[in-house]
């Protein structure tokens, strides 16, 4: 079965339909969102499709090596305009269509006023191992 990365972004995607920052929601709406995410993760696990799920802090920096003999160079914290990954699911599913279907479900997580966010998710296939019969 092929693996796919379903990537969530803090920013850097096209604008969503219901694009209100979470601290402007009602507390009960935050709870409803968290419950949706929790249930989504559990459902993936029960389906036998979940490989990994992780959430990333907004903090961090870019790092590269400097000239020999001096320490690495950092650039950050991240500028407002940069694409910023918020987290991911790795799923092991029947194929592309199923991965897209799952990302579509995730996109409907409830937001402000209980309406779906219609968030953009990025879906990326993993490279697999060469198949034994493929030569």
């Amino acid at each position, binding site marked *: 079965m092929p693996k796919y990365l379903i990537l969530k972004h803090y920013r850097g995607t096209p604008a969503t339909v219901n694009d209100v*920052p*979470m*601290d*402007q*929601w*009602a*507390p009960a*709406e*935050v*709870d409803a969102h*968290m*419950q949706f995410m*929790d249930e989504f993760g559990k459902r993936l696990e029960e389906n036998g499709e979940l490989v990994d799920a992780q*959430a990333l*802090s*907004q*903090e961090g920096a870019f790092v590269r090596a400097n000239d020999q003999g001096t320490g690495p160079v950092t650039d950050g914290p991240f500028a407002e305009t940069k694409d910023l990954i918020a987290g991911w699911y790795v799923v092991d599913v029947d194929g592309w269509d199923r991965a897209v279907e799952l990302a579509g479900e995730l996109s409907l997580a409830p937001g402000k006023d209980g309406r779906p966010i219609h968030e953009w998710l990025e879906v990326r296939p993993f490279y697999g191992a060469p198949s034994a019969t493929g030569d």
Partner: protein
Amino acid sequence: MTGPFDEATLRSLVPSVIGVLVRRGADFAAAEDAVQEALVEAVRSWPHDPPRDPKGWLVTVAWRRFLDVVRSESARQRREVATELEPDPGPTQDADDTLQVFFLCAHPALTPASAVALTLRAVAGLTTRQVAEAYLVPEATMAQRISRAKRTVSTASFDRPGDLATVRRVLYLVFNEGYSGDVDLAAEAIRLTRQLATLAGPDGQDPETEGLLALMLLHHARRPARTRADGTLVPLSEQDRSLWDTTLVQEGVDVLQAALARQQRGEYQLQAAIAALHADAPSTGETDWVQVVQWYDELLALTDSPVVRLNRAVAVGEADGARAGLAALADVDPDLPRHRAAAAYLHEKSGDLATAAQLYAEAAALATNLAERTHLTKQAARLNSSAGE
């Protein structure tokens, strides 16, 4: 062994059995492996066939395993060293090296993560798989970490006394950071600290180790009230205090009082004293905040820790009002984790809700775990939605 099979009792024998093997000439790494194998055997056979002398049983089985390994290695190397390592037929020595194994596993040459891993295996008797699950890393990664740690301490002398402070720090880390997998690491840390407290000190008592034990017991007592069923955090002020474990609170207070009576104060005793004042109060409002601040003053004088300074500012806010708390916060490094959360709380208390909401949102972005991020986001959401009404 009488009564039902108790795995914690079995595992409490592990460091002592490793000690016996090392005294008989095994190197620490090989002794530790052999004892792990004996443990697996014990878990299989003890429930239906409990030994009369559990420690003697473990020593016999572990020593046999150790010799098997030595013999097969020496056969492979075509050398005859096994004859030097024939089993000692006499009874095991009276000397108990449990404390030496605690010291070795918290050796200052180890990184904190390695010391924690080695302690959980060689002192607590957990399997590599259990330790790996607890810290959410692959088992192979944890196995490497543990074997590297064993190599690091393999040249350390078993006879030189170690430093109790390094052991306490490792146990505190285990208590504070472990929360996943099928092993209750907080309970495990309490078990080991209890064991350490009975071993430490010339008369079997060490006030700082007792202080650490008291601190753990008092925090552990609050655990049932600290999270809701859905995993969200409940702050101290909103906790249902009837859920606190009064037996653990009482034990924590008793252990702390005995420690304080020895008149050698240290940071764990002082932190435990603060936790005891919270445990004693029916609500946040009825907490003796003036005394809490006094303990923080003493803790600050002892440690000069920025985190203590931050927590003290919040306590000052309760004792002398939000403005005094904000004034105390002005002396605290604003880059500290949770600085904004504390500032948000004090601003809300002072009535400046707009600033508080903004600070809660910033604090959420800086949170180091999801439960805290959600909690802080909801604080901001609460203030923002009540402002809009």
